């Protein structure tokens, strides 16, 4: 099947203290229709930037993209004008955000905000748009759509707002939905409901979803493929089950070790934390960016950029270690 989104060798630079700082370096991944891709990594690893680059909404505008291509349904998005992009945004590519509390305009009712988006993209009368808005709210399992429509955002809980956001995002049946940490600010039960909603949208209308998260637990439940990002580079991509069971990159392994787990009885050791910090993109680095924090780092890691290794089954890893570290030690 033709991928709905094909990002290849994408590089992005933003103005920094000492001239342009590379934020994304040679990012490649693809997404098929009806597939959910988990984009994981620490804060500052470039997950959100990747999302904004796909949408062409980078802070510096189109000129921030220094190389590579973003193919959406076979159409090149880099180099499109702002006007051309506006027809894609919301209609074909929708996005939801981490903080549902601040995503809705506080001075308008939910109805107004939902119909606005519908009316930007589809030639509908306000009446028709209102009916569609109510339908969308039903789809995201809001029990009393009419009442919710007449509410101002402050009258809704975080979970409700996120549902409204998802309803808005899905209202023009986009082919690609980018969910930027949509469950981070929500409590666990609501989180589960939102994940269920996304799964439903994906299965029913074949929307491809990029699910950005630093929560590997959530990602493992939801996603069929995982892409692990580190400091603006792609560390590892592959099928979710494989990446989680047999991580090829020391960073993925470290991330997995840092997930808190419940154990029955007895005192657990301290939670594993990856030593060091994500490097500052404005400083010039050589070699593998993870090398300073990597327990397996070799001399070559500090001087040369690691090649992309194929571990089979579309599982790729950017590391010098042969066959990854799945059976290596150092991190437990």
């Amino acid at each position, binding site marked *: 099947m033709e991928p709905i989104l094909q990002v290849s060798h994408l590089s992005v630079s933003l103005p920094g203290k000492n001239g342009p700082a590379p934020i994304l370096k040679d990012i490649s991944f693809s997404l098929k229709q009806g597939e959910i891709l988990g984009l994981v990594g620490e804060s500052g690893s470039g997950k959100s930037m990747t999302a904004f680059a796909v*949408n062409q*909404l980078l802070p510096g505008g189109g000129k921030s993209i220094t190389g590579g291509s973003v193919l959406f349904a076979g159409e090149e998005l880099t180099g499109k004008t*702002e*006007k051309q992009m*506006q*027809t*894609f*945004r*919301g*209609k074909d*590519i*929708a*996005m939801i*955000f981490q*903080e549902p509390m*601040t*995503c*809705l*305009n*506080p*001075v*308008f009712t939910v109805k107004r905000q939902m119909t*606005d*988006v519908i009316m*930007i*993209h589809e030639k509908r009368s306000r009446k028709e748009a209102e009916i569609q808005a109510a339908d969308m709210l039903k789809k995201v399992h809001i029990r009393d759509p009419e009442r919710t429509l007449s509410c*101002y955002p*402050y*009258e809704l809980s975080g979970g409700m707002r996120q549902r409204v*956001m998802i309803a*808005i*995002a899905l209202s023009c049946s986009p082919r690609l939905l980018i969910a930027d940490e949509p469950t981070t600010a929500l409590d666990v039960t609501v989180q589960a409901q939102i994940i269920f909603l996304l799964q439903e949208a994906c299965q029913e209308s074949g929307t491809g979803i990029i699910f950005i998260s630093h929560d590997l637990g959530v990602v493992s439940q939801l996603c069929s493929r995982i892409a692990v990002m580190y400091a603006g580079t792609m560390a590892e991509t592959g099928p979710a089950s494989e990446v989680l069971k047999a991580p090829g990159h020391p960073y993925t392994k470290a991330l997995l070790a840092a997930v808190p787990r419940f154990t029955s009885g007895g005192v657990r050791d301290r939670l594993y934390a990856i030593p060091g910090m994500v490097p500052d993109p404005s400083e010039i680095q050589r070699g593998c960016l993870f090398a300073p924090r990597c327990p397996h780092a070799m001399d070559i890691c500090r001087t040369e950029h690691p090649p992309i290794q194929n571990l089979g089954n579309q599982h790729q890893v950017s590391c010098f270690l042969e066959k990854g570290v799945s059976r290596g030690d150092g991190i437990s």
Partner: protein
Amino acid sequence: MMSLIKIWKILRHNTLTLLGAGLVILIVLMGLLSPLISPYDPNLMNIPARLQAPGWSHPFGTDEMGRDILTRVMYGARISITVGVSIVVIAAAVGCFFGSLSGYAGGKVDRGIMAVTDMVLSFPSMVLALALTAALGPGLFNTMLAVCIVRIPLYVRLMRGQVLALKEMQYVKASRTFGAGPVWVVARHIVPNCLTPLLVQMTLGVGDAILIASSMSFIGLGAQPPMPEWGAMISTARTYAIDQWWYAAFPGLFILMTVMGFNLLGDGIRDILDPRSVKN
């Protein structure tokens, strides 16, 4: 849309705002209806009846020409309200335009606009208005123009701050991901969210503008006699202030009431426009 009933519901529990609104309505009505309800002609001289103390035929007394002070105060309301409102509307319109431009465009445009704004703001507003009026020549229109120029920077600063803050709001960014263009973003998300502080500032500004304009008339640069402007009336009344207290007291009282009315109303408008106070 917010209905009048809802506005009333909010106002009912807010005595001070109600008082402010009442004062403003009273003064505006007084000004509008002055030709109908005033007992005399504002410029009708009656020398035998000069400087009479308040009494049945002249509730506020008469001035040195025998003109009825109540009538003149009523007509003065017209001038003061017109002056106050037009100064604020023009200053706000110009200020908002440059303020939003400054905030949204950023960079050189922003630096240029803010440099001029800071320069104007660094003068005491009264002194600058005085200097401008002196340069333009005395008269009510020139005074209005001068006060207007002095007030513009307030709105530039207000709007710029609002736009800068709102530009970074998640819902403004979110609306761009839903395919909204810049015009839509400004019209739909930025302007409506600026309205509350703007309207509050404008209402408070009317009282302020009236006060400055009256002060200018008081020192002889604004409205010229025989115009029944409150500040100008007090200015002439100075000579009689010791023996004929009513001459200066009533125009002064009305300046106080008007300015206070607008200030109280301005504070109350914030509560009315807050969507949180509308429901239930």
